[in-house]
């Protein structure tokens, strides 16, 4: 299976592992990730204002390329996924916005949100199948107690994201089971780590992140997994004393394709 892939700025810099293990694992599962040509940064956060057009064009370009190739568009970073999926929804539902975008881009065929957008986790669940993954695991992470940290961006706003139940999600726990480990469920798994406030008010990010880590540990977690580079940064910076790793790294490990990468 061949899919279009939008890595995003952070996956080519501070989160190279998230990207490298995504490639290795996909290959092991028979999925070819075809990088969007000349992709541009999504901007990190979706701007909900309907009159913001320019800031959403990079997402539309990626969406359009995937739609033209008739391939699903896959993202790994939670933030890219959120921005691109919300932009696609705006193209589908807000005529005035879509008209402005199409006029600006002046393409032969106008775009109306035809692309299918999947987060990598959704690709594993819906296109590959957790059962297939289970069957391909060569190095099951038996007995490891892992807490899934969803954060905000994978799940909200659910009306648009449609990934899972926004207050009681299971996709990451099902992923943890598929690689042979034991999921740990805790209350704060879908609360905010503080996000970009880490730059201006680090104390607020510290308070939020610390509460999440303590909550996961109290529930018995030995490790936390995430899909978001900024979540990972905030949790590690603010005193996580258990490993916080990208889910793609564990997947590569379980599939037996993890080798050292050059950072």
């Amino acid at each position, binding site marked *: 299976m061949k899919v279009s892939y939008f890595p995003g700025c*952070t996956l080519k810099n501070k989160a190279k592992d998230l990207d490298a293990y995504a490639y290795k694992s996909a290959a092991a599962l028979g999925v070819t990730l075809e990088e969007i040509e000349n992709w541009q940064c999504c901007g990190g956060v979706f*701007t909900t*204002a309907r*009159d*913001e057009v320019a*800031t959403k064009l990079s997402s539309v370009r990626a969406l359009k390329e995937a739609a033209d190739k008739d391939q699903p568009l896959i993202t790994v970073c939670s933030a890219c996924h959120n921005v691109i999926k919300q932009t696609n929804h705006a193209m589908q539902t807000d005529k005035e916005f879509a008209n402005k975008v199409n006029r600006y881009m002046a393409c032969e065929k106008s775009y109306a949100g035809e692309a299918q957008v999947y987060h990598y986790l959704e690709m594993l669940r819906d296109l590959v199948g957790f059962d297939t993954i289970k069957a391909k695991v060569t190095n099951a992470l038996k007995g490891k107690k892992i807490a899934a940290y969803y954060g*905000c961006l994978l799940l909200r706003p659910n009306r648009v994201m449609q990934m899972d139940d926004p207050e009681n999600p299971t996709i990451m726990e099902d992923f943890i089971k598929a690689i042979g480990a034991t999921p740990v469920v805790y209350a704060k798994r879908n609360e905010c780590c503080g*996000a*970009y406030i880490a*730059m201006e008010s680090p104390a607020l990010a510290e308070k939020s992140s610390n509460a999440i880590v303590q909550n996961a540990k109290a529930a018995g977690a030995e490790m936390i997994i995430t899909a978001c580079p900024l979540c990972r940064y905030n949790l590690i910076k603010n005193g996580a004393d258990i490993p916080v790793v990208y889910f793609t790294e564990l997947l590569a490990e379980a599939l037996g394709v993890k080798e050292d990468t050059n950072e």
Partner: protein
Amino acid sequence: MNNQNLKEEILRMSGVHPEKCMRCGKCSGTCPAYSEMEYHPHQFVSMVDNGEIEPLLNSESLYKCLSCFACIERCPRGVEPAKLVEAIRLIAIRRQGANHMTANDVPALLDADIPQQAIVSAFRKYSK
């Protein structure tokens, strides 16, 4: 711009209907930035409804919102307060010279591990 025009612009940009709010306070109760804010999400809703835009436009609360979408998800009336915060913040930073963060501010805010995502997100929220 008079207040009525400003209010209409905010409602048009955000698509929010503040009159749907039933003042339950759930948005503010779930907001992770609550303690940092002068005006809380439910106050954004009622103040916009009352046309009290100026105090919001000049409040630091605009830059405390984390875009976590919790208030959007958990409002039982579908009011989506964060969209008002966003619209007012944009009106504030679209004024000439009113950027909340500039490129010159950034180096001092970095450490060796901070992901690019944090910087582009802050820029998207704080400057035009």
